[in-house]
């Protein structure tokens, strides 16, 4: 369970960070990319934080 939560946290975190890198390269400083997709990115952020809490709590 611990390992799965940690893996999910890592997976979501990697996607989020990839979006951050992709967005910032697409249009520096990335605002043209982030603002229209804020709902999706913030939702992903909330889910990542949730799995982060689960992962760290179970450690």
């Amino acid at each position: 369970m611990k390992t799965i939560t940690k893996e999910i946290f890592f997976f979501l975190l990697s996607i989020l960070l990839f979006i951050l890198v992709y967005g910032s390269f697409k249009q520096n400083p990335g605002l043209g990319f982030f603002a229209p997709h804020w709902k999706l990115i913030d939702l992903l952020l909330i889910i990542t934080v949730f799995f982060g809490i689960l992962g760290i709590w179970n450690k």
Partner: protein
Amino acid sequence: MSNNRFKILTTIFVVFIFLAILIINYFDVLKFKYYVPPGNDPTLHTLITREILEKGKTTFSGYPPGFHYIIAGLSKLSDTDPVKTMVYFYPFLMFLSALAVYLLGKQFFGKTVAILSLILYGFISPQPRQTLWDGGFPNLMGADFLMILGFFYFLKAYKNGRIKDIFFAGLFLGLAPFFHHLSSYLMITLIVPISLSLLVLSLLKKQSLKKKLIILGLIFGIALFIGAYPGYIYFGKEYLKQISNGFVAHAASWQKFISQVNKLTPYAPPIPFSDYFLLLSPYLWIFGWLSVPFLLKGFLREKREEYVFVFVWLLIVFIFSRPISLSPMPGRIARELSIPLALSSGIFLKEIFVYFKELRFTAVLAILIGLSILRGLFGLSDWVGKYNPMVFIQDVDMQAINWIKNNTEKEAKFLVAPYNPWLYILTQRSFTEIRLDFDKMKNGDYLYINRYQEGYMWGDRWPYLRVREEVQSRKKDFQLIKNFGSEDERGITIYKIKK
């Protein structure tokens, strides 16, 4: 590498970061040779400072005068005009703010978090540099320097109970209201829930609540004594009334207090959720909130005061950046998220590598995080000349101002259309702004048509075009005296008003 050598290298790196912050923030001022600081507000700051220099005190009761006393003091010391003093002092505020953030980070979360926060705050976060754009110098001094130093000593004092820290906590928290009204409001709305959260944590840690209450009482007592008593002695009752109106005058009726606070909301309405990326940068927004699991672990599991402090700070400022009761100007409060987000981003960036120890995880994270920070740093070049559209006096304006000083009598009455706040200050002539009120066009000796500045934050081109149209349609009332720059709305034209 020996421990000593590593320490020296880290210190050199930190000094380099601070030097870079200074260079970046002074770059525009020196490269473009600013005549005046950016924004409208500095005109008011100049008038208050000049009054302090002339009379020894200020009669303006609407603005806390701490910043103006500093500028007056520096002007006196350097024998410089307050406008020039402000031009060369305002970039230094960013340095002071970064220093406070670094000290807070280093004291409570270690050097790594402090350096990471400093890089994000000093080079990547658009705030508070954006605050300087419209002359929010007292705001920066209050909320981003004195309040942060106050928090630094406050948390130190709460943890160790040392008299020196209690005194400095009271001193810096007490000083903040002398510099900025909204910053004082923010400070109070933060320090109350933070104190309560710390007390709850102390209760959970089975620490002596009595001792903690005494520490808090002493800090607030000193803050009040230092803040209020000299305020009464040196700045007078009116100024104290101004501050108390925000907190006390309407406290008799809670409803009245809320309505008073909410009346301010239209001046800075809440920003849409999508704009947090724009205001605070996507890097700070994402890294900062990703720290939440580590902040929660820090105070719920390890029961560490500094983690509850940052968590409550972040949460309260975010809540107050939304349209809720008691949030006076949510749009303005939103930018104050930059410091808690920078600190929590630093925490995230350090803790994530402590949590994911395996190479396969750390390699991926290091590449992604490294790339995003690098890309964030590339954004620095966008700041070159960013303030220029908000610097309302440039070469062409200076030519017009010098012409006025050399060619018009001191008693001459000028009308300025639509607007330029600096003319009175720089010419010492009587200037009345008529904006688009054309009925007032007769009430002066000269009409000064100001130029439109591309990129100006608070206005568009059409009022400048409209003024010129109106003058063209009433040609017989005006005699063209001189034109500066281009002959369209991008230039300045002075007319003599025919009587």
